[in-house]
Each structure stands twice: as C-alpha cells, then as structure tokens.
C-alpha cells in the first residue's frame, strides 16, 4: 500500500510545478519528440542518414556514449566520501549524484541503441536466449557492467527515499554493502569502456595503456563539475540546504582530477609528437590536420584552451572559492571534456584508416537531432528524479499511513 502511495505522490510531485518548470519540461518533451522523429527516419532508411561510413564507423553517438559513461561513473565521487568516510557534508549531494548517474546511464544505453544497425535483434545479446560472447568481447562486458550499475543506482536511492517516505530510518546494514559495491562498479564501468577502445591494436590512437586512467581522471573532473553547477542551481531554487563546504569539497575534487588529467594529456602529447611515427597520424590529424583535412582542429584547440583556463582558475584558491569564478570554470571544464573525451577521442581513432586512407566525418542533422533528443531525455529523467527526491528528503512528502515520529525525523538529517 505504501508503495502505491509512494508512486502516486511521486507522480503528483513530478507533474506539478510552476510556469518555469512546465516550460522546461515542455521544451525537453519537444526535443525528445524531435529526436524520436529523427530516429524514425534513421530506422526507415538505415544508418546511411548519418555521417558515418565504413571509414569512420562510429560517430557522434558513440562519442557521447564514452563521455556519459564518465559522468555516470563520477557519481561515486559523491558516494564515496558520504557513505564510506561518514562525511556528513556530502549527504545532501549523494542522492543528487545518484540521480545524475541514473540519467547519464539512461542516455548511455540510448546512445548505444541508436547506434545499432539492427536494434530489433537486441535479444541476441540477452544471455540465455541469445549468444553472449562473454568474456571475450569487451562489449559484452560493457552490457553487464552498465546494466548492473543502473540497477544498483536505482535500488539504493529508491530504498533510502522509500524508507524516508514511510518515516522509517533506512537501515545501514541493508544498503551500505551495496554502496561499496557501486563504488567499485563505477570504476569498473569506466575502465571497461576504456578497454573497449584500448583493446584494439588495429587503432593505435586508442591502443594506449593510459586510456583507462585518463578516462577516470577526466570523468572525475567533468562529473563533479557538473554536480557543482547542479547543486548551485538547486540551492538557488529550492529550500534544500546545500552547504558551502559541500561545494568547496566538490571543487577540490574537480581541481585535483583536472590537474591529473592535464598531466596525462601532456604526456600523451609528448609521446605523439616528440618523434612523429605512423602511429601518431591520428593525433596529427586531430591537432593539426592531415593532407588538408582538419575538421577536428578547431574543436580540439577550443577544448585545450578551455581545459587549461578552467584548471588554472580552479588551481588558485582565491578564484576557486569565489562563486563568481567557480561557475564559469566548471562550465568550461565540462564542455572541454565533452569535446576531448567525446568526438575528440572516438573520431580520430578512425582517421586515417588502418590502410592509411583519410575520410572525414561530419554529423548530419539527423544525428544531431537524435543526440539532442537523448540529452533532453536524460535531463528529463534527472529533473523528475530530483523533483521527487528533494521534497521527500525535506520531509514535506510523506506517506499518509506513516505515523508522525518527529524525533525520528529530526535524526534523519544526519543519516542518509
């Protein structure tokens, strides 16, 4: 019965709101519909409507996928100190972080599905009735870890929120082991996704042992950066109290990760350019262009400049601690890593081809509409999750059956 009330109240909360809220959700819905239309065209005519070709066989979709896996994994950065180190500061951020993880994962899965040539055969992937090429195929690993992570990150917050809703204290013994698991799992999803690319000797640009660690570093920069922006927004628009220390700590994490990421970038650049070999061709294409082809050059330099500027701002304590500078720095970092770890990583892997041919890639409007639609879907999911979580956390939405236990309620703030 409580579950029914929970669902009902969640629905009521998610669908109710002011003008701005409805405008926002309406815009997202429109974008999703546009994406759906684009996808229907793609289903009808095949992937030929995208800019991909046999030369560049993965494009915008997989680029966004690699980036978003990072964003999803970065939720651990919030979970880790809050649950494990009993860092009270982080408790408010935790549920939000898991919400981000869930919506990023939903986007990841959607990007993989729209990239498939024969999505109607997805059941071939289901172990038992299909043919699951495990453990040989890293893509099979990815299917497992991503879905597992999604389930974990749905179950933990649901349990906590539902307990709150019923005016019960969430039992630590029940959920903390899963929190630990999800921490390891988060590292796992990101490493597996990196290995998916790094495990291909055919593509020297990806076939590097630094790829996995660099994935982690950039994720732990982009993820908390996004969280800071989101938490500041929530703080400004809801009574949900987010302390300054929480933001400061997240900013610290972002800074360190961004610095490490820059060091790794430098070491990669050195390796590629100090002695220019055949294996550096892709990096050459990315940064300088090859034989008059340089579609990615403006993008990657934008990313590098944003990245360095943002890391510079974050490194200076005075600037990092000022609200005025922190926000643009986080935004810059987020965009820089989206470029760098999205199409700045995926597309050069295909250029030049293993036989040395250079064919460039430009996404078509169909791809862009579908991509926008999926991002809109992710933001939609995120908005709904946060919208429901905050009032429950604040105690303003409670099961009608729950007895009012004021003392318990008060104790809740420190738990989570």
């Amino acid at each position: 019965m409580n579950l029914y009330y929970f669902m009902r109240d969640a629905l009521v909360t998610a669908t109710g709101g002011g003008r701005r809220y409805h405008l926002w959700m309406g815009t997202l819905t429109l974008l999703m519909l546009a994406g759906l239309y684009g996808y229907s065209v793609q289903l009808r005519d095949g992937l030929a409507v995208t800019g991909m070709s046999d030369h560049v066989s993965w494009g915008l979709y997989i680029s966004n996928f690699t980036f978003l896996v990072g964003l999803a994994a970065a939720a651990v950065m919030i979970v880790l100190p809050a649950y494990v180190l009993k860092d009270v500061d982080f408790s408010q951020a935790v549920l939000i972080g898991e919400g981000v993880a869930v919506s990023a994962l939903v986007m990841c899965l959607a990007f993989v599905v729209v990239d498939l040539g024969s999505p109607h055969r997805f059941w071939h992937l289901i172990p038992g009735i299909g043919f699951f090429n495990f453990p040989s195929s890293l893509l099979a690993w990815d299917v497992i870890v991503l879905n597992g992570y999604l389930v974990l990150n749905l179950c933990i917050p649901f349990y906590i929120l539902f307990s709150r809703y019923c005016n019960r204290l969430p039992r630590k013994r029940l959920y903390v082991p899963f929190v630990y698991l999800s921490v390891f799992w988060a590292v796992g999803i990101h490493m597996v996704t990196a290995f998916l690319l790094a495990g291909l000797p055919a593509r020297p640009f990806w076939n590097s042992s630094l790829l996995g660690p660099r994935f982690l570093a950039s994720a732990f920069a982009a993820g908390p950066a996004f969280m800071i922006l989101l938490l500041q927004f929530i703080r400004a628009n809801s009574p949900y109290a987010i302390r300054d220390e929480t933001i400061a700590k997240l900013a610290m994490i972002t800074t360190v990760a961004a610095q490490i990421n820059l060091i790794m970038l430098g070491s990669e650049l050195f390796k590629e350019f100090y002695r220019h070999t055949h294996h550096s061709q892709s990096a050459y294409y990315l940064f300088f262009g090859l034989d008059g082809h340089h579609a990615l050059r403006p993008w990657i330099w934008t990313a590098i400049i944003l990245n360095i500027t943002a890391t510079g701002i974050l490194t200076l304590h005075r600037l990092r601690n000022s609200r005025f500078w922190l926000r643009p720095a986080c935004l810059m970092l987020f965009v820089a890593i989206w470029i760098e770890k999205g199409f700045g990583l995926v597309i050069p892997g295909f250029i030049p081809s293993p036989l040395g041919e250079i064919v460039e890639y430009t996404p078509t409007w169909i791809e862009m509409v579908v991509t926008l639609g999926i991002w809109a879907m992710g933001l939609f999911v995120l908005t709904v999750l946060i919208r429901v979580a905050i009032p429950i956390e604040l105690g303003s939405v409670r099961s009608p059956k729950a007895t009012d236990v004021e003392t318990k309620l008060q104790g809740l703030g420190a738990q989570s």
Partner: protein
Amino acid sequence: MNTEKTRFTFGDLMVRCGFATASEKTHTARQGDTQGGCGNPRPQTGASCSCSGGGACNGGGNPPGGSSLTAKPVTRRQAIGAMVGGALATTAFAASSLSPKTSDEEREKTLLKWQEYFKDNFRLMSDREKAETIQRLERLAYLDHATDVKIKATGAKPGVLFGYAFNISKCKGYRSCVDACIKENNLDRKSGMQYIRIFEMENGKMDIESGNAEYDHPVPAEGHFYMGTQCFQCANPPCVEVCPVGATWQEPDGIVVVDYDWCIGCRYCEAACPYWARRFNWSEPEVPAGEVNANQHYLGNRQRKKGVVEKCTFCVQRTREGRLPACAEACPTGARVFGNLLDPDSEIRYVLEHKQVFRLKEELGCEPKFWYFMD
C-alpha cells in the same frame, strides 16, 4: 558462452609441425561447424571437436542433448516464435479478409519473416533448422525480389585450410578482380560496396599507408606497382573476438564468416579489423534483379539486409566446391594464387616454399592467411 578457443599460429604450422600433421591440429582448434553434423564421415576423430564451438551436434543421429548449453533456450525461443507467429498469422488473416490488398503472398511473407526473426545463431542450429531456414530464405528471395536462388550450407571439408598469395610483380592494377567480386558476391550496387582494394604504390615504398586506392587513370602507371587487399581470413582474428553476440566466427577451413541474420550491427568488428576488410550495410543493399548471382551460400554471398556487417569470404560458395574465388579466376595477369595450405602439391604451397613472402602488419599477431610475394 563461447567455449573452447585454441590459438593456432602460422609460425607453428609452417616451421614446427610441417603441413601434414597440422591438419588435425587445425580441425580441433576451430569453433563452429557449418556442416552441423558430427556424423559426417571425417577421417580424424578430433574433427568432431569442432562442434564444441556451437554445440551443433544434433545432426547425424546424435541425440540433441549434445547441445545441452543451448537446448533449453532454443525451445523457449521457438515457443515464443511460434506463439507470436501464430498470432500474427491470425492478424494477417483478419486483415486480409478486411482489405482486398493483402494477398496470400503478403501473409506468407509476414509469417516467414517472423519465423526468421526467432531463428537461432547458425552455429547453434540443428540440421533440420538449417534446412528450414534455407527453405524460408529461398522463398523470401522469390517473394521479395522475384529471383529464384539456391542457398547452400556446404560445410568445410576436412583437411582443407584456405590460403591466398598475391604476386606484386604481376598485378597491373586493372581491378578486374574488384568487378568480378561485386558480381559474384551480390555486393550493394547503390553504395558501390567493394571488398577488394587495389593500392597504387610508388616505386621505392612498401608502406601500404602511402598507397592510393582511389586512382582513376590508365594503368599501369609509370613508376608504380599495385597491391591488393581484402579480408585476409586471419588465423587469430580480432574481429571475431570482439563481436558481442558471436555473429562472426572462423570456420574449420579457416574462412571467417558472418551470420547476417544474427549480427546486430554494432560495428565493433569493423573497428577491430586492422586491414579495413569489413563493410557495413548503411542502407538497404540493392542488386538489380537480372544481376543477382543465384548460386548462394548461407555464410557467403546470399543477399544481405541493411544494418549488418559483411566481408570477403574467399567466395565460400565457390571454394567449398573446389572452384577458385571469383577474383582469382578474373585476374588477367595471374597475380592471384589461391589454394589449400594443407595440400603439399598445391600452387600456394609452392609459392610459400619457394618465394620470399611477407604479410601486412605481422606485428599485430593476427596471422593473416594472405601473403605477398614477388617474382
């Protein structure tokens, strides 16, 4: 799911074992079995192990229990398939009785497509299932394209391992092989798909990355030589390893094949191939009705659909019947040498033993079965 995987290297084959003893080795090393019958009269007992890859042991009088791994799921899926198929037939029937446009043929097509949708990975099919799907596919080819095709599922012959050698001194860059391949393998004409690429190379360079495959002028060009590439049927193929659904595998005779009805079109294999040998059907492939090659193989040149990957199969529909691949047959210069690596009297063995040969990107360890040589 994917079971035994034994690596087999060419160094092994050529230096240590000698060709004669290698036959047993290769046959135990392979996964999958096109013949689907372990009851096939094979000389070596070891040959029956090739069933381990898919458990397609149901043929030849073996009890179906041999594929315990898959027996249950198949049944469940077939049940679903039958259920949905039945429901669909009823719906189609109802629809047809309402609208005069839906003919019997439409209904038959819908039903056949649904049965096709629920079929298994080719490696896991019993002989009966194979025969049934071939019947459906032939019928569908007739209903869809009004062409009478004959689809075979000829399996690998024991004691056969195919290999290819390419004479750089002889090739003049005519691309006759490319054209022959397009016709033989029913390649999509609309996108101009080609399996073979001929690189025009400047004298004095041996690096294929400096070659130009897009040349468009009379050949042979002064100061240039030519090198052809296609799928090299690697003995240690990275494309097979990465496929998440096992839609591509190596056959006992060394040919790497794709089950076009099992591939989900993720294109991971395309990224994994170091020789750029795989092609994807970005749109519905088109072959004019009059030009369809009706002599087809399930794992070879039968017509593909959009959204799946394909590649050169050394013309499995021809070579398993003892014929040459279309490219080798079409080459006017005699630059292409094809044959059985396990047959000591074959021409390919002669080339490997008497010429200096090399392979592309050997450092990657894929062990391609495609060698280049010079006179």
